[in-house]
């Protein structure tokens, strides 16, 4: 079927310089590294906006097949940087809803809605909203002893940026309540049993990149559709999801990558996908 106009797919990505993160692209893998080891990977407003920008750029970059998100130092992400003036409530009330609406929620959304698969390489502690950053990744490789801890109730707050949803889905309500009420840390080894972690590894970044290389040979449209439909599957009804699967398959059935996939299958060779 011929479509009216092809989208311009070769968007040139200029060198981006960042203050709080590192961004590099190698062999089709865009690695985003939170670079704030001195504050255990805590995120202020600008560092969140930088991650969003990097994820969006990786999303548009034709060269990039997979995104790996990791962090420098001992921690992965310890959540909100409490030194940020916008959240300092010590001298009067502040609108944390605004911080969520304009910073955290868009960050979570950028990872979840990216058309590329995002692999989280968790090198250490995830705390507060850092839990949401980690669990917004599509696949997670983590150090076995990396600690996941809430900390919200300690400050007189409640879990945010989607973490209530993610944990209840995986662990059930009672266990999750215990996690969020008593700030009981759970290790990656424990979370792996709940299905929240894909792989335990002492070298999470290396293993995440290894995983990324396998993924980068797969058909891009197929990858992004699988990602989207599985998100829908955990949020919508069976009837909605089966409709979505039908729409998706009709679309993929019209792609040239499907034809290539079929030809390669019958020729007994590796397919070469173009993302079309």
């Amino acid at each position: 079927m011929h479509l009216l106009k092809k989208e311009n797919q070769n968007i040139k990505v200029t060198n981006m310089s960042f203050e709080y993160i590192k961004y590099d692209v190698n062999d089709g893998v865009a690695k985003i590294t939170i670079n704030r080891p001195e504050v255990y990977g805590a995120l202020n407003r600008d560092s969140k906006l930088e991650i969003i920008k990097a994820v969006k750029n990786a999303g548009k970059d034709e060269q990039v097949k997979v995104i790996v998100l990791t962090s420098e130092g001992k921690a992965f992400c310890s959540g909100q940087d409490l030194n940020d003036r916008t959240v300092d409530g010590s001298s009067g009330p502040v609108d944390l809803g605004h911080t969520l609406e304009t910073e955290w929620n868009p960050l979570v959304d950028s990872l979840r809605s990216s058309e590329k698969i995002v692999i989280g390489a968790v090198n250490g502690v995830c705390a507060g909203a850092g839990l949401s950053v980690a669990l917004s990744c599509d696949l997670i490789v983590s150090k076995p002893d990396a600690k996941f801890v809430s900390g919200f109730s300690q400050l007189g707050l409640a879990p945010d940026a989607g973490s209530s949803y993610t944990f209840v889905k995986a662990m059930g309500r009672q266990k999750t309540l215990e996690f969020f009420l008593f700030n009981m840390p759970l290790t990656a080894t424990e979370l792996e049993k709940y299905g929240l972690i894909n792989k335990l590894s002492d070298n999470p970044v290396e293993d995440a990149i290894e995983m990324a290389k396998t993924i980068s040979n797969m058909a891009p449209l197929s990858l992004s559709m699988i990602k989207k439909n599985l998100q829908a599957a955990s949020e919508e009804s069976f009837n909605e999801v089966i409709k979505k699967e039908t729409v998706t398959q009709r679309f993929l059935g019209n792609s040239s990558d499907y034809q290539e996939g079929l030809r390669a299958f019958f020729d007994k060779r590796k397919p070469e996908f173009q993302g079309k």
Partner: protein
Amino acid sequence: MSLKNILTTNNWNDIPGLFLIELNRPKVMNALNTETLAEIIQSIDENKNAIKCVLIKGNKKTFSAGADIKQLAQSNSIDHLNDERELLWKKFRLFPFPIIAGVSGYCLGGGHELAMACDMTIACENAVFGQPEVKLGIMPGAGGTQRLTKALGKSKAMYYTLTGKNFNAREAYEFGLVAQVIPTQTLDQELYQLGKTICSHSPTANRLIKESVNKSFESSLGDGLDFERRQFYLTFASQDAKEGMNAFIEKRKPEYKGN
């Protein structure tokens, strides 16, 4: 007429009667100025004898982000009073064939009013809807307070027009404002499928159905039912009705001629 702001394709994907309009002002996020609206309506008007169904889409990032604010800031009341826009909207309402909006990305202000003026909308997962006029010290002026209220009810319509907040595709689906939410990349295919289905039906039946559904917004239930009843009688005067029912009985595909 040369088209500067839109691209049009007659006979899209070899379906006779399927007319695709693509808003094409990417630099200004498909802002819907009078010229663009005029081009949409004129291009439909020029092809109206061949058209069975119109599809309107933007690009992946933006359906239409509304008015050109810079232009709007220069205008005064009398400019608006004398603008042909009002007549264009009226004309748009009266086209007899189904008009479908396919929304991907931003669909705000006047862009959202255009989508609501269409007969139905299908939305991609990345769609964002809203009437943000209040943030500029003005208000919606082409159905934003009227059609939105019909779809959402008073309280929600007030909420969105008074806060200027956006809502997403899923919310729009729950409000009944869009017919279907589809994965973002699949818009072309799904518009084509929907257009193909509509073009395979009798243009006369399509027209009478469209008129009847629209009547329900403008009449009491009793008057609406009377109107529908008469439209129903009218379908039986068409050759297409005979063809449709005969084809069903003879277990074959009907071939409608629009008479």
